[in-house]
């Protein structure tokens, strides 16, 4: 077992006890990256080789020099008797949607390929202040638009460490792949429609979307301002709780960050779950899927072994004393995707207005043009297809003549979706749930290139995660087994606003109860 195969909790404990040095852990991480990651994503990607197809390609920018300085500083502090913080010496990767000072902060896009951020996002800065060692920026769908990480302008895009012929999911695919491949124990991702939870499920790791406003969005290159949530990705629940505690909390730079005290999440983990009321909803076992041939919407059951995994988890939890409540109605779940198409696109189109070639990022080289031409060409040349698609849809549904029927309507449907959760979590309601237990995704990972290009189908993989973004509530995906082809299955817990403690508690209980199960001993393909 290499140093880097340990959990974040173990690493930081040993470092503080003097058993390990931060530099040693860093070197272990770098060695693993050299072994499994292959070449980082780049704009001029050349031809994909057979070699490429076996590697993870999580990274865009490996910031080795910077990381080494940080690790050396941690070791220096320890020697002087100063506590470097709760994440002392833990290597982490940062989804390249965050600005980190003096690093290329690209959003996976050509339009920011040359942008060096002059400031650091609050969530990343908090990791650094806690002693974490920032190893680099990892790859993602361009501007987080996608569910497979394939749309990045930086190719090769990340691959699933369990089977590199498959996608890692997205948009935080680089984050989950880097954690699943044991390159680092922790990664900072973002979740707007499921972008932490879905790739976490595909990659067999833990991914948590906090309550909206629990973690500051300052420095997160915005997609859907009312939906975006930075969150932790880890190999186990304890590590996720540790990281969440570090990054959560109010921020004077973010007006939408709640002025609420951050509880001790690690306390919550150890609590007994007997009596916890956990609901299962039939609305999460079927999805409305656009038929690839006809384009008509059809209702389909989710993948069989995914469904089985959820029911198995329910049994395990029941065995620990939880009360499983079945047939919980969540009637507005099916509206999640159409509503997301509208709200997120309106916000995205506006958020992407600033990429105009004027003051940073890509500007067209074509000379002698007037200003309007400069805008049009810079944006056409700088943005990939996915951003263009979202921008145009955003323009359409917010245009003056359509705004009422699309955007205003979608904001109302959002209330309805929120209403579903409020009803089931209501302590005086009919269900009085502490949490909902659902599958994270309708299927396990799909093959590279299988879905990309079909924007509709790609989006619908988020159907089971997106409602939590609309409602703002927290959600977590944890590994719950492997499917018949050896690909990870994820299950999801959802709870009421600011009840990250509940979903961590339930997740930890399941994790501990199943820690010796055979499937947990199987390693991802790249680590074999």
């Amino acid at each position, binding site marked *: 077992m290499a140093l880097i195969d340990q959990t974040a909790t173990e690493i930081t404990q040993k470092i503080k006890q003097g058993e390990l040095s931060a530099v040693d852990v860093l070197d272990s991480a770098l060695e693993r990256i050299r072994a499994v990651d292959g070449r980082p994503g780049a704009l001029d990607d050349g031809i994909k080789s057979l070699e490429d197809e076996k590697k993870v390609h999580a990274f865009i920018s490996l910031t080795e020099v910077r990381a080494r300085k940080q690790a050396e500083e941690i070791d220096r502090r320890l020697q002087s008797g100063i506590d470097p913080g709760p994440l002392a010496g833990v290597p982490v990767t940062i989804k390249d949607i*965050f*600005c980190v000072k003096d690093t290329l*902060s690209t*959003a996976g896009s050509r339009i*920011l390929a040359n*942008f060096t*951020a*002059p*400031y650091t*996002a609050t969530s990343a800065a908090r990791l650094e202040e806690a002693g974490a060692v920032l190893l680099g920026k990892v790859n993602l769908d361009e501007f987080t638009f996608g569910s497979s990480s394939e749309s990045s302008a930086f190719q090769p895009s990340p691959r699933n460490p369990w089977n590199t012929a498959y996608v890692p999911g997205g948009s935080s695919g680089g984050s989950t792949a880097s954690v699943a491949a044991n390159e680092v124990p922790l990664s900072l991702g973002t979740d707007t429609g499921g972008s932490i939870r879905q790739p976490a499920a595909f990659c067999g790791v833990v991914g948590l979307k906090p309550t909206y406003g629990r973690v500051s*969005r*300052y*420095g*997160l*290159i*915005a997609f859907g*301002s*009312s939906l975006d949530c930075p969150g932790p990705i880890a190999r186990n629940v304890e590590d996720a709780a540790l990281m969440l505690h570090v990054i959560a909390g109010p921020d*004077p*730079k*973010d*007006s*939408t960050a709640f002025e609420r005290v951050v509880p001790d999440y690690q306390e919550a983990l150890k609590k007994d779950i007997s009596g916890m009321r956990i609901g299962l909803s039939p609305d999460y076992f079927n999805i409305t899927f656009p038929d690839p041939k006809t384009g008509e919407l059809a209702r389909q059951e989710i993948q069989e072994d995914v469904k089985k995994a959820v029911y198995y988890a329910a049994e395990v939890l029941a065995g620990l004393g939880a009360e499983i409540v079945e047939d919980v109605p969540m009637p507005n779940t099916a509206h999640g995707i159409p509503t997301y198409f509208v709200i997120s696109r*309106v*916000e995205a*189109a*506006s958020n*992407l*207005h*600033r*990429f*105009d070639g*004027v*003051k*940073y990022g890509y500007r067209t080289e074509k000379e002698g043009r007037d*200003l309007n031409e400069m*805008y049009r060409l810079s944006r056409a040349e700088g943005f990939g297809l996915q951003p263009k698609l979202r921008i145009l849809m955003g*323009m359409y549904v*917010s*245009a*003056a003549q359509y*705004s009422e029927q699309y*955007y205003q309507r979608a904001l109302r449907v959002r209330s309805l979706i929120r209403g579903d959760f409020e009803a089931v979590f209501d302590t005086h309601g009919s269900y009085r749930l502490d949490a909902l237990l659902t599958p994270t995704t309708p299927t396990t990972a799909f093959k590279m290139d299988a879905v990309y290009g079909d924007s509709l189908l790609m989006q619908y993989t988020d159907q089971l995660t997106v409602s939590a973004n609309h409602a703002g509530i927290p959600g977590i995906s944890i590994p719950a087994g492997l499917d018949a082809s050896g690909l990870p299955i994820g299950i999801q817990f959802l709870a009421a606003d600011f009840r990250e403690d509940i979903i961590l508690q339930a997740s930890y209980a399941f994790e501990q109860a199943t820690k010796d199960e055979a499937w947990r001993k199987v390693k991802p393909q790249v680590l074999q």
Partner: protein
Amino acid sequence: MTEYEAIIGLETHIQLNTKTKIFCGCKADSWGAPPNSNICPVCSGLPGVLPVLNKAVVEKGAILAAAMHADIRLISYFDRKNYFYPDLPKGYQITQYDQALGSGGYFEIPMPEGYVRRVRIHKLHLEEDAGKTKNEQGRRLIDFNRCGVPLVEMVTEPDLRSADEAAQYLIRLRQLLRWLGVSEADMEKGHLRCDANVSIRVKGSKKLNTKTEIKNVNSIDAVRNAITSEIERQIKEVNAGRRVQAWTLDWDDETGKMWMMRSKETEADYRYFREPDLLPLQLDEAWVKGLIADLPELPLERRERFVREYGLPLYDADIITGSKVRSDYYSSTDASYGGDPKTISNWFINDILGMVNDLGITVDALNITPQYLGTILKMIDEKKINVATGKSLLKKVQETKQPPEAIVAAEGLGLVSDDAAIREAIQAVIAENPGEVKSFRDGKETLLGWFLGQVMRKTGGKADPKLTRQILVELLRG
């Protein structure tokens, strides 16, 4: 000959004088700073940044809304106005679209002709300013220093009826803004900017016709000239049987010409939506009530009071209440002196204001405090000094910062009312100027003034003028 009337509405952008910008901690005033030196990630629209609302902007905006008698919304919202322009780094402006801070209200403008024009206010809202651009050899140079400076946009109903009224509106608005302390309102620095909407209609008609928008008229004169020119143009068009088109116009005050800006066939679609990065602005009802109660006496109220209580002519009262510090100075002088208010007014308008103009300061920065001025006036009344001495004392007090009594004592400036001393001086003047004495005695009585001047010189300006004149007449006439 058809008689037309002009229908004018004004949209003003008022730069608030807070210390910092509306959504970030950069300075609100960076006049004269090198380009792109007063910027930060937030106001330069870097990826990933978020706005955080400045408390003082809300306070000053609310004060202005209260002074305009507007309804102050307890919950107002910010919205995004999306469009592309190089001086707009985010590609959208954060503004307030449909649920703004203030709605309704009015502003009364007294016109020199004697009537009062009441202008209804449509809305008052908070928003951020854009940067500055300038043309240079076919390129645009952009400076973001001004991005994010807090603005209040105030839109009137089309209640103004002439270019003069529009000019007066700006003059009174500027006075009020400075009075309330919410803006420096210096039009040369762009603290107060104005767009005018102009249309005409046949006198007596109730209908509103197509209007044109004149953008960026940024001085009082420019407003007057631009509107006058546009009214003339529209009348010409209509008389020639053509229709007025909804153009957007640009006025060049130097050449006195109107240019047409690109006319938009369709209105720009700004795709307004609620700003998700800001929470609704919630004001405490008790706080708003307190704000309204604490409003200072407004300029026109004070002017009216000065006319009433001091018996001053309107002209004087208008000048004295031109600014709060001026009127405070006047009131303090009155409290100290207690004598004829018109006397104070004369000295204030002629001498004090003249002095502050020359020195380039405001009255509250004078070394001549209201108390000192009061003392000088008292000394004149008590005949301790004459008026000429009094005037020269002003300069001396300003330069030395000494109280006037001390200077009088030190320089022996006291009024010479000693009969014998004056006689002595007059005798000397008569003896030295036999020619003029003969002329006077021969009938040129206008020389009396000259003699008076000579005696004044002889006595270092200290002779009591009345007494001197009396004795002069006595001795000259023989």
